[in-house]
C-alpha cells in the first residue's frame, strides 16, 4: 500500500503557542482518513499546513514522494490537492454552475470542458438540478456540497475537507457520508477534519487523534475510541469505559 501524502514531524508554532507539535501520519491512496480531536487540538492548523495556507515551523509534508515546501495554495491545488473551507465560501455573484467551473480552469482553458466537468462535479454531490441557481438560494447542506463540487472540479488526487458535516442534521450528514463513500470508491483519497464522532466512525478507515497539538492515537475507528488516552482527552481524566 502506497502513501499518497506523508506528514513528517510537522510543527507549527504561533507566538506563545505550539498549535501542532511533531505530528506524523500518512494517507493511503483511495482511503478516507479522519483527523479528530477536541476543540483547540490543532486539527485545522494541521489541515492548513497540508493545504499550503500556512507554512510549517518545522517538519515536512510529502505529496506523491515530493516535498511540499513554501508552495502557495494555488500551486498545491494544481498538484492535485483540493480543499474546502470550514465556513462555506461561494463566489456570491456567480451561479452554482459557474462556481463549480472555476476549479476546472486549473487544468483547462476551454470553457466547454470546464462546464462539462462542473456538471459532472455537481452530479457527484447531487446538485446538478440547481446548476443555474444563485448561491444565496442554496440551503446550508447544499452550500457545503457546492464547496465539495468546486474542489472536485480541480480533478484532485487528494481531497481535504474541513468540517464538512458541521451544522448539518443527521439525515443531511448521512447524505454526505454516501457521497464520500462513492468518491473514495472511485479512487479519491480523502482527509477530513471532523468533530462529529458518529460520522467519523461511519466513513473513516483510519483515524488520527490530536490533542494539544500532538498526536495521541492513530488507527481504525473502533480501536481509537477504545483508547484510554483518547477517552481522557475528550472526557477528562478519570473516565474509563
Amino acid at each position, binding site marked *: 500500500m502506497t502513501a499518497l501524502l506523508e506528514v513528517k514531524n510537522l510543527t507549527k508554532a504561533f507566538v506563545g503557542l505550539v498549535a501542532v507539535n511533531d505530528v506524523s501520519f500518512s494517507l493511503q491512496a483511495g482511503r478516507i482518513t479522519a483527523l479528530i480531536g477536541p476543540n483547540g487540538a490543532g486539527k485545522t492548523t494541521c489541515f492548513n499546513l497540508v493545504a499550503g495556507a500556512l507554512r510549517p515551523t518545522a517538519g515536512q509534508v510529502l505529496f506523491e514522494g515530493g516535498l511540499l515546501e513554501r508552495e502557495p495554495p494555488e500551486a498545491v491545488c*494544481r498538484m492535485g490537492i483540493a480543499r474546502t473551507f470550514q465556513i462555506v465560501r461561494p463566489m456570491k455573484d456567480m451561479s452554482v454552475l459557474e462556481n463549480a*467551473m*472555476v476549479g476546472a*480552469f*486549473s487544468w483547462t482553458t476551454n470553457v466547454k470542458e470546464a462546464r462539462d466537468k462542473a456538471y459532472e462535479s455537481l452530479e457527484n454531490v447531487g446538485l446538478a438540478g*440547481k446548476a443555474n441557481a444563485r448561491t444565496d438560494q442554496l440551503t446550508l447542506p447544499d452550500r457545503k456540497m457546492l464547496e465539495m463540487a468546486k474542489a472536485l472540479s*480541480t480533478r484532485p488526487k487528494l481531497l481535504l475537507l474541513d468540517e464538512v458535516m458541521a451544522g448539518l442534521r443527521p439525515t443531511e450528514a448521512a447524505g454526505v457520508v454516501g457521497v464520500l463513500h462513492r468518491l473514495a470508491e472511485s479512487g479519491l483519497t480523502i482527509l477530513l477534519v471532523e468533530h462529529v464522532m458518529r460520522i467519523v466512525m461511519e466513513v473513516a478507515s483510519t483515524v488520527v487523534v490530536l490533542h494539544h497539538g500532538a498526536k495521541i492515537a492513530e488507527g481504525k475507528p473502533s480501536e481509537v475510541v477504545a483508547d484510554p488516552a483518547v477517552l481522557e482527552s475528550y472526557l477528562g481524566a478519570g473516565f474509563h469505559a
Partner: protein
Amino acid sequence: MQRTSDQASDTKRWGAGALVFAALAMVGGMSNAYVISLLTIVLLFTFLGQSWNLMLGIGGQLSIGHALFVGIGAYAVAILNIKYGVTPWIGLLLGAVIAGFVGAVLAWLSFRFEVRGIYFALLTIAAAEFARIMFGGWDYVGGMQGLFYQAPSGTMDLGMLRGDARFYYFVALALAAIGVAGTELISRSYWGYVWRAMRDDDEAARALGVRTFRHKVLVVSISAATAAIGGGVLGLVQGAIFPDSIMGMAISVDVLIGPVVGGLGTAFGPLVGSMAAIPLHHAMGALGDSLGLPGLNSVAYGAVLILVVWFLPDGIWPAIVRLYGAIQLPARGRISQLRKAEE
C-alpha cells in the same frame, strides 16, 4: 435543458445589443451637430467605462487613476501624428502597448508587495497625478500648453483617422460596440471566469488553483491598454490635449461614472450609465453657466451618484433587467420557476 435556456438568453442579449447599436447608428445619420458631438463623448466614455469595468467589475481591482492610461494613449497618438505625421492607427497601437506595460508594472509592484484594494486605488491616483505633472513640465510634448491637431480638412480619411464630427461619431460608436461585445465575450471566457472568481473571493479562488497574482496583473494591463485606445481617440475628437484635461482627476472620475451608475460588471451598464450621466452633466453645466452658478454640473454628478448608490446599488441596468423579468413572467410562471429552482 438548462443549456438551451442559456442559449436562448444569449441570443436575446446579443439581439438586444445589435438593436441598440443599430438605433444609435441611425441617430448618427440624422441628428443635429450638438447631439452628435454629445453622443460621441457618451460613446467614447462607454468604451472607457468598459475598460474600467473590466478591471473592477470583473477583475475586482479598483482604479481611481485611469486618467493615466487615457493620457498615455492620447499623448502617444498626438506625439506621433503631430510631430512625425504618423497615422493615429500606429499611435493607438503603441499607446496601448505602453499603457499595458505601465499598468502591468504598476500592478506587479503593487500586488507583489501586498498593496491591495483601496491602497492600490490610492497608488493609481498617485501615478496619474505624477504623470500629469511630469507631462506638464515636459517641453517636448508642449508642457502645460499641450499639443494641437491640425484642424480637420473635412474630408474623411480613415487611414489618418481624420474627418468631421459625424465621422468621429461612428468611430466612437464602433468603439462602444466593441467595448460592449468584448466585455460580454471576455466575461464568458476562461479569463472572465477566473477573474470573477478572484473578484468574489481571492483566497477561495487560489484554493481552486487560480493564479490570482498573474491574473490581477493581466486584468490591470488589459484595462490600461484599452483605456489608452479610448484616450487616443478622445484626443483626436477634442482636437487638442493638455495634461490637466486629459490626465486630470476629472477624467478618472468621468471614466468610472458610467459603469458605477449603469451597473458594475455588466456589459450594458457603462453604456446606460454614460447615456444617463454625461448628458446630465453637460445640461447642468450649461444651466449653471446661464444662471451664473458654475459647478452646478459637479453637484449634479454628485447627486446622481448618491441617488444611484442609495436606491440602485447595483446600478441602473441590473434594475431594468429585474423589472423586465418581473413583467415578463406572469405570477404563476414565477412560482413554477421558483419551484424548479428548488428542485
